[in-house]
């Protein structure tokens, strides 16, 4: 089944609903994606995108989509939420399983302090109200990778509620405008991860790996304030950056440390919300956006063709690019929640409620955690704009690319070049090379110091910017030479000898009388041809501005 084309409607123009570009690490520009006309020319944040099918008729009802997300982030901790087993990705199957994780009868949960601190820290960073008392519940369902037959979660009274997440959607020509948007956070709850089921279809058996069973998760529940795949993707990306900045989760989607389920429905604005579907298995930001947009359009098509939307769970098939019903035979499941009897209420304190003489090992102080909050991505971006005078979208790109900000800052530290120059080199040249070869920042052959040295040479006018590009290309070959060595070996220093350059210009004019004729006839643009030729003759060592000046002088004389 092919995905139907989705189009944005408005202002008489139709835009193919573009792909949301790149996953988490291959995004060239700050959250790019569709050029939605809701943003184009308007600045209203609350504006909802309106959808219709391919052939809109006059007066036809517009559709609006309502999207809510449930995001599961694996807590970055040494041990699991309720047991002492280690947490490690890609360990041999069932090698990190305690008696409790395997649900041997009589084993009891013991809450991991680190996980609680991570939840409080994340809650604070997302502007949540932290509940001083929260409770644990059992969520009951049978599944092979859930050995206890229930998951311990926080359904009734979670650790954090009523927060918000602000993210920026790029808009305008060249995506140069960033519009801030906010999605409300309903709650953050602590819960156990399940194990993994590996289905061996050949031998029709299921293999279970319990390494992941019991790992601490933060479930972040967003209110349905989102209206399209791109918004969802950018919001999730921002959350990912926040979690990584806090260190509360590595939030690597490819390793399953961040998993997103989307609740999607469509309706006509002003009318009650439609029946929603839940789309699962969204394991990259790109697929998240794709799946949501596909599902929105599918629902619209279904409704326009007189069909109805079933309240069902669907999964996204990334190869076919569409969502499919998971055909849950049991229909709507009742999880039969009940309070977890083996865990007393989780009580947190702040500076005012902290009991005198309390053992700091036994209590968690919210105010103390607040003091340790690191700089959040939004603040980092603001600082970059203030400090280095860069554009906001450049700050987005610097943060979105894993390790790029650190690289940038290291270059800045070591070079005398202008921050603007550094920004341009890092975001254009350096990032461009990385993209071309599909490399991560950490795999780059060029170190920050090498780039810093190169930019110093450029800054001191030792080499031209064209020569600098050449040096950069040499550096990329990993031959272990410094920029200085490359410059002297290849004799790329800027030609400072004006006499020699004048000589060269003179012979070049003589060799190309036709060009000179054209120039004299009043076609000033052909001078570039001459400049190019002279530069080539100097192996890019001459300053083009100087060549131009000499040539113009000679021509007018």
């Amino acid at each position, binding site marked *: 089944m092919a995905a139907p084309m989705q189009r944005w409607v408005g202002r008489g123009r139709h835009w193919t609903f573009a792909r949301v570009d790149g996953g988490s690490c291959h995004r060239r520009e700050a959250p790019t994606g569709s050029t939605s006309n809701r943003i184009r020319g308007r600045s209203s944040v609350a504006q909802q995108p309106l959808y219709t099918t391919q052939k809109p008729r006059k007066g036809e009802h517009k559709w609006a989509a309502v999207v809510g997300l449930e995001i599961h982030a694996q807590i970055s901790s040494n041990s699991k939420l309720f047991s002492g087993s280690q947490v490690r990705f890609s360990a041999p199957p069932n090698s990190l399983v305690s008696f409790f994780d*395997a649900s041997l*009868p009589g084993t009891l949960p*013991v*809450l991991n302090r680190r996980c609680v601190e991570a939840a409080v820290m994340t809650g604070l960073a997302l502007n949540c109200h932290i509940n001083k008392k929260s409770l644990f519940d059992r969520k009951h369902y049978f*599944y092979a990778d859930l050995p206890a037959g229930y998951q311990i979660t926080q359904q009734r009274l979670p650790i954090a509620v009523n927060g918000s997440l602000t993210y920026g959607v790029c808009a305008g020509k060249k995506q140069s405008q960033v519009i801030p948007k906010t999605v409300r956070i309903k709650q953050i709850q602590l819960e156990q991860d399940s194990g993994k089921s590996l289905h061996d279809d050949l031998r029709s058996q299921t293999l279970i790996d319990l390494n992941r069973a019991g790992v601490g998760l933060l479930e972040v529940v967003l209110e349905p304030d989102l209206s399209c795949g791109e918004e969802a993707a950018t919001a999730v990306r921002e959350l990912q950056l926040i979690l990584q900045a806090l260190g509360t989760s590595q939030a690597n989607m490819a390793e399953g440390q961040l998993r997103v389920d989307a609740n999607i429905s469509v309706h006509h604005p002003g009318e009650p919300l439609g029946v929603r579907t839940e789309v699962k298995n969204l394991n990259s930001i790109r697929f998240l956006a794709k799946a949501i947009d596909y599902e929105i359009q599918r629902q619209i098509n279904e409704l326009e063709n007189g069909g109805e939307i079933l309240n069902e769970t669907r999964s996204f098939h990334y190869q076919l690019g569409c969502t499919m019903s998971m055909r849950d035979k049991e229909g709507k499941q009742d999880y039969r*929640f*009940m309070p977890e009897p083996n865990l007393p209420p989780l009580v947190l304190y702040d500076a005012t409620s902290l009991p005198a003489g309390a053992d700091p090992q036994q209590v968690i102080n919210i105010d103390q955690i607040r003091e340790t909050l690191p700089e959040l991505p939004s603040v980092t971006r603001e600082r970059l704009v203030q400090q280095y005078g860069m554009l906001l979208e450049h700050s987005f790109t610097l943060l979105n690319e894993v390790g790029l900000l650190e690289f940038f800052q290291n270059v800045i530290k070591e070079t005398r070049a202008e921050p603007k120059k550094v920004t341009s080199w890092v975001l254009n040249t350096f990032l461009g090379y990385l993209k071309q070869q599909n490399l991560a920042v950490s795999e780059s052959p060029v170190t920050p110091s090498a780039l810093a040295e190169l930019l110093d040479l450029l800054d001191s006018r030792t080499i031209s910017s064209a020569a600098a590009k050449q040096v950069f290309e040499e550096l990329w070959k990993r031959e272990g030479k410094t920029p200085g060595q490359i410059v002297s070996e290849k004799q790329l220093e800027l030609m400072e000898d004006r006499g020699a350059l004048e000589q060269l210009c003179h012979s070049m004019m003589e060799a190309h009388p036709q060009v000179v004729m054209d120039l004299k006839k009043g076609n000033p643009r052909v001078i570039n041809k001459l400049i190019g030729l002279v530069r080539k003759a100097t192996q890019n060592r001459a300053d083009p501005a100087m060549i131009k000046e000499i040539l113009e002088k000679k021509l007018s004389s």
Partner: protein
Amino acid sequence: MLEVSAALTQGQITPTELCQKRLSLIKKTKFLNAYITVSEEEAFKQAEESERRSKNEQSLGDFDGIPTAVKDNFSTSGIETACASNMLKGYIPPSNATVVQKLLDQGALLMGKTNLDEFAMGSRSTDGVYSKQYREKRKQNPHSKNEDLDWLMTGGSLGGTAVAMSAFTCYVALGSATGGSTRNPAAHCRLVGFKPSYGLVSHHGLIPLVNLMDVPGILTRCVDDAAVVLSVLAGHDTNDCTTVQDPINPFIWFGRCEQTITVFLVQIEGAKVIEVSIPHTSYSIVCYHVLCMSEVALNIARLDGLQYGHRCDIDVSTQSMYASTRQEVFNDVVRGRILSGNFFLLKENWENYFIKAQKVQRLIANDFANAFNSGVDVLLTPTILSEAVPYLEFIKGDNRTQTVNMAGLPAVSIPAARPNQGLPVGLQLTGHAFCDQQLLTVAKWFEKQVQFPVIQLQELMDDFSSMITHHQKSANILLSEKYF
């Protein structure tokens, strides 16, 4: 137990001799079906170690060399723990329950795992897969001591443990107390059954019935013994976060602290008896069932045959395997509770059942708090309404004990009186939460007043020996072994 301990210390008997004698008695009384698993080898090994310590004068204390029995719902490392269920038949836990480990650390000998209702669900000790033979055998001897044991059947769920104690196959026994599992059989069997305050003793490794109320219970022959056992078991367990965080003062037990007890007793002599009302008691049993069944439904959910225990042959799908496995092994009581529990927890029933039951539980806890706030130190009630009763009347008798569990309070049942037919009943004393020591002090006073244990011991032995005679066993051996 303390007498036996003294005998061991004085060298009247060695741990291996003692162990050997208990084991042969267990074999002789096999028809009682008190034990599901007898850990002969382990017990012997422990006895030998104990003997070595005793020779080197490195005795670990009062428990060193003392034969002990543990209800089959406590995990025991390397020893099958089946919980009287086919589901867990053959399940061998990799580690000991905290309380078991604590006793072993003191040098106690683990004789075996005693019988119970399947998953301790029941109050008759007839609902376990190992019970059948037990009942039939007893019916054959309606007039012997067996009759007494037959009545035991109405006390559960640790009937097997109580029988093991009564039959002198051990001196200390651990049971679990959720509703009245320790105190009911104690009352029927002339034993002391003590349920500590919730949170005082770890329930880690105890296969749960209702976590919210499960407390390891102590079954002994006299209050002193119960106090000694409690002093070993009480305290925080890093594996169980419902246990008290504060350090526990060592319990002063009475055998060695005559002075302390005299002081207490003087205070008690001036005790006043007043009537108090626990008005919500009548709702207790219903409320207990809702909370219990709901929790059972989830506690039993892990028993799906996937990782351990019984697994059916059907392998069409995981779900069908779950269904068939569970259908094959669970008895009617267990299945009834799972179904009811799931019913109470349904979204539409949550408010009407579970939440209401929680409210009643709070009302009951408040009742007790009010009673205690009115200046009462200890509550005195019968453990059971009468001596052993037929099953159909049983339910009524249950609510004296589980009410206390709902409030998490400590309670002890001590043998009290012998009504017309010569069957024992129990007297239940309930104390303030975490005032377990005060409670046991009062219990000790009662024990002293009624002088019941002495009579009980002699008569038990007489009854017991007559029963053994009935089975063509030598009574003499047993009588001479009165204490060992």
